[in-house]
């Protein structure tokens, strides 16, 4: 039985409660540093930071419903060259944690000496909406929680409204909010031996009855409602994003800025194929293409870019939707990538982020499979 503890907090003190839990980890030297979002001095907006001084955690806001960058990316930067010698806790939303698992499989991050602290996530807002929320209320996290629990998901990003993974998987320590009366407390559970030893070191012992069952049920319900949202999203975009005409039409707003690729936690290439010399052409080439079709759009190859990016990362796409946030021209990249990713993952029976043991679908094969490919 994993250690599971309900940490009680006073009404309206959820953030403070979580922060003190995190602070105690550093104070008791269970871990040497924490990668966690801190609120910026200007207030409201947060940015992830590597924190070694427990005092700094007063500014932490891991529940703030905003994700400007995927922490998976940051954990990759932190560990790719050489794994940490000291123990670092990384506070991750479920999608970030799943992306990080994929990056570890892609050798872009190291699992070594990292402790994953996963946090339940009801969803996040766009930067614009979050700023508005911050102006409206001093406690945006709690406010959004309240709204979402009461069924108002209008402030959530599309990606979050359709997210079927509100609870973290593969965490060492999970911080549970779903199915818990967050007015009174939150749940802390060790999901690995590593997590156990941290909680033990903190002296956390199961006290009051922990609402595990309730949480499970609530997570399932939330996931189900999100599946419903997802299907609605698909049907909303289905017409818009399928077929040559529609695709060319939606991608007509694409300016090849490749921001989607920059934001994507899984686009890990040091130099993107599409920024490489492979796509440097002499003027004659461009003229040749123009002659062939009468005209050629510049910058060229936007459809090819998106199709290729799908081919490269969609099997591992965790649906975080940061690509959508990054697009300056509102090209519906999220619904496209989410849907294609889902189809690919279904085909290979692969769930990105599910397990470090699952092999990347395009790195392996079985001799007896896919007989329909190559059939005549």
């Amino acid at each position, binding site marked *: 039985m994993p250690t599971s503890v309900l940490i009680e907090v006073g009404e309206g003190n959820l953030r403070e409660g979580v922060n003190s839990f995190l602070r105690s980890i550093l104070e008791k030297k269970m871990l040497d540093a924490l990668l966690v979002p801190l609120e910026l001095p200007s207030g409201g907006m947060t940015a992830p930071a590597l924190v070694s001084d427990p005092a700094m955690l007063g500014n932490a806001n891991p529940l703030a419903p905003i994700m400007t960058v995927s922490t998976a990316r940051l954990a990759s930067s932190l560990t790719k060259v050489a794994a940490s010698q000291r123990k670092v806790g990384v506070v991750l939303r479920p999608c970030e944690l799943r992306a990080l698992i994929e990056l570890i499989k892609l050798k872009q991050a190291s699992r070594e000496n990292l402790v994953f602290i996963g946090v339940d996530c009801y969803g996040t807002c766009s930067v614009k909406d979050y700023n508005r929320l911050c102006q409206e209320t001093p406690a945006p996290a709690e406010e959004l929680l309240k709204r979402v629990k009461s069924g108002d998901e209008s402030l959530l990003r599309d990606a979050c409204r359709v997210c079927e993974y509100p609870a973290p998987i593969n965490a060492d320590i999970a911080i549970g909010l779903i199915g818990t009366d967050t007015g009174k407390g939150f749940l802390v559970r060790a999901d690995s031996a590593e997590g156990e030893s941290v909680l033990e070191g903190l002296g956390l012992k199961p006290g009051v009855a922990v609402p595990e069952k309730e949480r499970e049920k609530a997570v399932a319900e939330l996931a189900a409602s999100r599946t419903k949202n997802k299907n609605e999203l698909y049907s909303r975009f289905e017409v818009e994003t399928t077929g040559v005409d529609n695709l060319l039409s939606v991608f007509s707003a694409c300016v090849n800025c490749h921001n989607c690729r920059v934001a994507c936690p899984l686009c890990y290439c*040091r*130099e993107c194929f599409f920024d490489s010399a492979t796509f440097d052409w002499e003027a004659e080439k461009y003229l040749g*293409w123009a002659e062939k079709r009468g005209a050629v759009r510049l910058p060229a190859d936007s459809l090819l870019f998106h199709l290729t990016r799908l081919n490269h990362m969609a099997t591992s796409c965790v649906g975080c939707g940061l690509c959508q946030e990054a697009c300056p021209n509102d090209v519906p990249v999220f619904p496209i990538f989410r849907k294609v990713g889902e189809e690919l993952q279904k085909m290979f029976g692969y769930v990105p982020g599910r397990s470090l043991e699952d092999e990347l679908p395009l790195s392996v094969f079985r001799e007896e499979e896919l007989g329909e490919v190559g059939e005549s």
Partner: protein
Amino acid sequence: MTTENRNSNAALVIGAGIAGIKVALEIAESGARVYLCDRQPHIGGTLVQLDKWFPDNHCGLCKILPVFNRDRTGQYCLRRGLLHPNIELLLHHQVKKVEGKPGRFSVTLKPEYPRVNPELCTGCGICEAACPVTDDANFNQVPGGHRAIFLHHPLALPKTYSIDAERCTRCGACVDACPTRAISMSAPDEGLQLKVGAIILSTGFENFDATTATQYGYQRYPNVITGLELERRPGGSGPFPGVLYRPSDGAIPRSIAFLQCVGCRDRKRDYCSSACCMYAIKEATMIKEMYPDTDVNIFFMDLRAFGKGHHRYYDKARDELGVRFTRQRVPAVKQDFRTGDLLIMAFDQSGEVITSRFDMVVLATGQTPSREFEETCQILGIKTNKWGFAATGAFSAVDTTREGIFVCGTASTPQDIADTLVEATAAAGRAMGFLGSEKALPVTPPRPGEEEAGAAVILCNCYGQVGQTINLREIADFCHRAPGVAYVEEVVHLCHPETWREVKARLSESGVNKAVIAACSLLPPPGLYEDTCIELINIREQLAWVHRDDGLKATEKAGRLVNMALEKIHSQEYVPPPEGESVVPGALVIGGGLAGLSAARAIAERGFGVEVVEKSDALGGNAGHVFSLLGGENPREYLENLVDEVKNHPRIHLRLNTEVVGVTGHIGNFKCTLKDERSETADIEAGAIIVATGAGESRPSEYLYGRAGQVITQRELEAGLASGRIDAAALRSVAMVQCVGSRDKDRPYCSRVCCSQALKNALNLKLLNPETEITVFYRDIMSYGFREEYYTRAREAGVLFVRYEPEQKPQVSLEDDVLEIRATDPVTGNVVIIRPDRLVLSPAIVPPDDNTALSRVLGIGLTGDGFFREMEAKFLPVDSPRAGIFLCGLASRPQDIRETITQAGAAAQQAAALLSRSRLTGGKAVSLVNERRCSGCELCIAACPYEARVKNVEKGVARVIEALCQGCGACAAACPNGAASLRELKDQQLFRILDAAL
């Protein structure tokens, strides 16, 4: 310096089937020259007629091509041809005279006439159209086929037409029709003189002529066909690809009977053809895969699935695919003339005659020496055995009766492809010892690109074969206008030697180092690729001949193909050639038994150092327990000599009580850690490793072994008889039980040697005491090849053979110290009761437990049975999955002493060929890493099938071990951003080709 005092650095290989090709490649790769001759005008022998081979029912012929030095050998399907700068093909030639002595033979060869000159023949087929004679047996084995001049095999290279001298009327129609004047009817007198150091005979076999087995009605009943005909009919290049029609009415057969041992295991040919059981099972398997409902019944005497993995294949055919097996020699086949169905008369268990009806009957014909073989052997001055195969020694399967002349494959004994390839490799190794000094092949680096020089375009009209469909003028005009083309040359016949010389001369004069050659699938001779970037396109087979009806579009397509090729070579970046890695010129041999010692001696004789590591404190291994061979020869003397030679050889270093505990590095550069009995470690380097760790004998748990003193093993009997501890004169009755612990659920393999051992010991006992009653309880007697004769002799000597089914094993009991064996004869149902003085068991050969640990150390896998796995069961039977590590002896599979010596010779040859290289390089077309772009994601490492990509941990990027890279491009396709690429096909190049294509 005169040549007379030196051994020739060339070998002559007679017979260009699979064995001959393998010998030639091995010798060529060891740095010597080879003349590969064949009476036929094409290479490939019997093998190219077969589409698929067990155990995996695939083609894999190309896998015998050398992996190093790739650019200099033809990188094409071997069904098409063999290109190697050290190999000269002398096809359609016969050896007429052999003089001289080993190292300095003088050989006379004569071309066969009527003759099509391979240098002039373009394969256009006009001659065939002109020929008035038709014939009835051809490549596809379908009656009503070809003319007297014909293309034997449509893929053959050189694509030379053959003339069937027997059918040809010498009318001369083809001579007049041939546009290149390639055909001549009569022979000039002079032959060809060659000086060679060694000769290897690899002429193969001929299928038994089934018409002479009249009881089966072959060629009288249309639905009786041979196994080879069955191969061809539904073959991919056969007459009816993918379907099996019954010859008489074109129906899909619902029932097929295979009759085994047609033409062998009889009085006239008292030997077993070794391969027929397996080829019948393979064909049955393929029929079942095509038509699961077709009843396939194999009528056999003993099911000889004795090779590696064969028993599992047999089990699968029987248990999973439902192939039926009926133990019975079918006396005759009758035809129902109304339906064309065939009736097989047979006796059932009770002796009643029963008749079964089949849609088709397939005769599994045996292997016989070819008709001309006797004559060839006389010319070579070598002896044949009583069945007409080349005679070989008890301890060498490849030495003939004349020094310097070797034999391999089915010329000396019937065998399958895997065994043939082992012998061929071993024969090459033996021959190398008689050739002049070995030298590594020089590597000519390609010139760096001189951009301004431009490219040449060479268009071959092939005597109008191309021009009749394609307007070459138009292509030439287009090329003239295309940017970067230095000159365009249109030639009538590029592969004519004269034309070829001129074209090459012009290429080098003009200074261009890039060329597009638009010709045919006849490849330019090697030597051109080295300093020129060539893109070859095939506008004959892949254009003019397949788009005859639409010249306009074909011309447009040809233009595009030339353009695509120009785009490719124009965008070819110059990358300095791979330097290659140096090779440690020594080998590590693991195991000091017969296999290891044989391999060590052979490698040392080739001039390389050898470290021999033996786990125990003694040399000799299992062979020390063998006191005589089946033919009566004494192996102890052989072994003692071998041990002495190895001990005293200056280049061999022995380490007893030592194990290998660590191996890092790769082919050419292994670093091995050894540990001795005092647990002290030593590090050594080796360019090649030979695994010869042997195997053990299982300790029987059945038949009261260990509980009754009378129950012993064959090995114990042999030792007892040799030492006199067992007195044959006192033995009244002896029983033997075969397959103790073999061919069952736990060990689904045949231990291969035990039947011969039982026959040997039974015959010995009978010799010592003819009165001894001997009863052998067996399942199938595995007296394959010429061992069959001893089976016959044993029966003649009165040895009683009683078969048992694995479900009904003989029951052994002991009462008052009297041993009793009870068994039920599955044929008669009679219960046999014997009370022998001794019960002799044939226990299984079992791989040692420490194979698992060693396989981990070596990074190579084991088979399901626990023996070391080879790279590819059929075509690479000596290579382990890790390049540079070779297998031989019982470590690889159960086999007898002579087979072990052969495989050790083969492993030694492969190691020596490797060690003789000064540097290891792959081809030009290896893959590259753009370190700046590489993110270190390792997708390329996962994709590489050769472990040629590793992580450079310091830099965090991938690294290519060029010696291992085969240039397949799997890494480049897996890499998301082009950091992994092929040297000669980068992404942008491909995009440019696509642009030109569309």
